[in-house]
């Protein structure tokens, strides 16, 4: 009696999991293959690539593969979906244990993490010194992310240029147009925001509490960073940072910027019309456009600039990623492939833009018809060509090996300041936290 029950249970569990395995498709059956799957053995015309978003950078890779195959019929990409978090863990583990031959030929890297990885693991990256990639065709600020000691280690891909996107219908209700938000300062933005809030009940911005995204964007818009050229932390005595935090506090206090908890709530506030605007990397346009009922009600312009800070501009960036090549892989083919596609094909960028919203960093792409097509969702504005023009004007910022330590420490400081701590001492604490981490 008991025997049949246990056996039945095991049988049922097995059937269930196997049924799942059978109906899902995918490449099942590869489990018995126990050989290492890195780059080494994959043949001369195949490149292994790690990237993380099927709708975005993986889709872009697949199109790039087709473009390159036109001239190289034997060429093949072996794309392995690997989330960023996962990719960083694997990269660190492999580098730390010296198993670099397990790395793929090409991998995508968050711009903010690029210098950290090159500085700590120089051996695993191949440089682009001998390649034909023309870096002058990319915005300087974007190239800077993957440059260490004047050597290029990456080909920029995903555009992180910041946009100010506003709901024209809400602005109209308050008596404004998007032009009133173009080329303005944050002080003007605050005044406008209070008025919009009073007349419509909607804040102009939302954002994740405890995330320093907005502050880092303000900082970069003035060409400032958390580190100086020698890599020393400059969190105290940083005028741009002080001014950014001060403005952030005023925005939140006035209710013009509403803090939410999670990324999900942030996206929700956009698609559910809880906010009249967004200041974020251009990639947010994918999420904005997921609310089909808001079509025609959005417009895009540049972002406000800091008042009274040297070098302040209306242009900044958040996020973005670049391609890196593994020193142990097929570097020649990898760099030729990247040069011919991500750094050299208008056709390629024209193909991927409409379907994935993957906006180029490669400036020549902006001249094509596809980029200049009016976007119905944004009231007929050709936003992609506009954003590429912004991209060229974004000031560079220093990331360095300790970017995440700096950013996290500033996040903590901002949280504490919002809860009433004295800004100067909170920032001094952040500075000493970063100095400790670097020591």
């Amino acid at each position: 009696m008991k025997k049949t029950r246990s056996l039945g249970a095991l049988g049922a569990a097995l059937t269930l999991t196997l049924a799942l395995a059978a109906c899902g498709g995918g490449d099942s059956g590869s489990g018995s293959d126990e050989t290492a799957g890195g780059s080494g053995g994959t043949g001369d015309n195949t490149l292994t690539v790690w990237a993380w978003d099927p709708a975005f950078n993986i889709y872009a890779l697949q199109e790039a593969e087709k473009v390159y195959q036109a001239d190289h019929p034997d060429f093949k990409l072996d794309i392995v979906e690997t989330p960023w978090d996962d990719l960083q863990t694997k990269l660190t583990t492999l580098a730390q244990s010296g198993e670099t031959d397990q790395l793929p030929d090409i991998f995508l890297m968050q711009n903010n993490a690029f210098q950290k990885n090159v500085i700590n693991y120089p051996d695993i990256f191949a440089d682009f010194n001998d390649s034909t990639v023309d870096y002058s065709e990319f915005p300087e600020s974007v190239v800077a992310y993957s440059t260490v000691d004047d050597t290029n280690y990456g080909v920029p891909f995903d555009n992180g240029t910041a946009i100010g996107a506003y709901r024209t219908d809400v602005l109209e209700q308050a008596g404004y147009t998007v032009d009133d938000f173009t080329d303005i300062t944050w002080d003007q933005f605050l005044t406008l925001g209070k008025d919009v809030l009073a007349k419509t009940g909607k804040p102009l911005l939302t954002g994740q509490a405890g995330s320093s995204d907005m502050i880092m964007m303000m900082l970069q818009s003035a060409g400032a960073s958390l580190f100086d050229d020698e890599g020393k932390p400059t969190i105290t005595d940083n005028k741009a940072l002080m001014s950014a935090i001060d403005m952030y506090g005023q925005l939140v206090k006035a209710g013009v910027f509403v803090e939410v908890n999670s990324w999900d709530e942030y996206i929700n506030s956009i698609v559910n019309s809880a906010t009249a605007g967004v200041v974020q990397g251009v990639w947010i346009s994918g999420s904005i456009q997921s609310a089909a009922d808001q079509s025609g009600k959005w417009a895009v312009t540049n972002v406000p600039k800091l008042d009274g800070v040297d070098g302040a501009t209306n242009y900044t960036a958040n996020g973005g990623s670049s391609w890196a090549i593994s020193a142990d892989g097929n570097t020649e083919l990898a760099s030729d492939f990247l040069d011919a596609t991500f750094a050299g094909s208008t056709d390629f960028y024209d193909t991927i833009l409409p379907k994935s919203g993957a906006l180029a960093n490669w400036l020549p792409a902006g001249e094509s018809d596809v980029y200049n097509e009016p976007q119905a969702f944004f009231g007929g504005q050709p936003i992609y060509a506009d954003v590429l023009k912004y991209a060229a004007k974004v000031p560079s910022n220093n990331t360095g090996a300790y970017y995440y330590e700096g950013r996290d420490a500033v996040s903590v400081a901002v949280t504490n300041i919002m809860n009433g701590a004295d800004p100067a001492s909170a920032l001094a604490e952040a500075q000493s936290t970063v100095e400790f981490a670097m020591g």
Partner: protein
Amino acid sequence: MTKTTLRRIPAYAFLTVAVIFSVFPLYFMAVSATNTSNDVIASKLLPGGHLVDNFKALVDAQPLGSAAYHSSLNAVVTTVLALVLCSLAGYAFEIYHSRAKDVVMGILLLAIMIPFAATMIPLFRLFAQVGLVNSTTAVVLPLIATPFLILLFRQASRTFPHEIIEAARLDGLGEVSIFTRIYLPTMKPTLAAAGVITFLFSWNNFLWPKVILVDNKYQTLPMLLSNMRAGYVTDYGSLMLAVLIVSVPTMVVFLLLQRSFAEGVTGAIK
């Protein structure tokens, strides 16, 4: 009669609250699997009609079948090997008891306290040096011998009558046969308990597979779950469906084996 009934009301009330607390998040998970992404974010509590859509989106976007296959393979292999190795060791620690073996057991128990994050990099290096990156062997090996399971079997063996072993020896049975033919059949509840615990742990294991399975072709279901949140836009309907699909096999295993599981734990705690 009514007096005792009255006294039992708080007990039933407490249990009801506990059950609601336990089941409610599961209900939310199940209902969300049938709703659209926006409905999930808006915490809709009624079932919707998007189960099929969510499933299609999930299967299109993610290698669900492959991940389910690898998860099943890893969990089944881990469970079977863990039962064999730990029952053998637990049995030997009790039946062939000696002072030296007690010392060894004590030392092995220390392993419970080692944080995994500390051993991860050296462990990875170890497997990499012998070419076992991406292998089932490497995923499974750290889970198949645990001091806790050995302890479970040792405690359970304490009630196993030694006379039977003596009798079997007199009948000329070898030591291995005594273990397989006489001991193991009486240990079914303990095997069930150990099996459930191992299966749950292996199925839900995340950090180690994420590290050792360098090539994401071999990814498991929990890895797939975390992948789904990696892009710029997350589809919460299919994410919740995936959460549900990942949870169902472990629930089924527990529901079907729960009586033996309870008996096994009871036997071991005696």
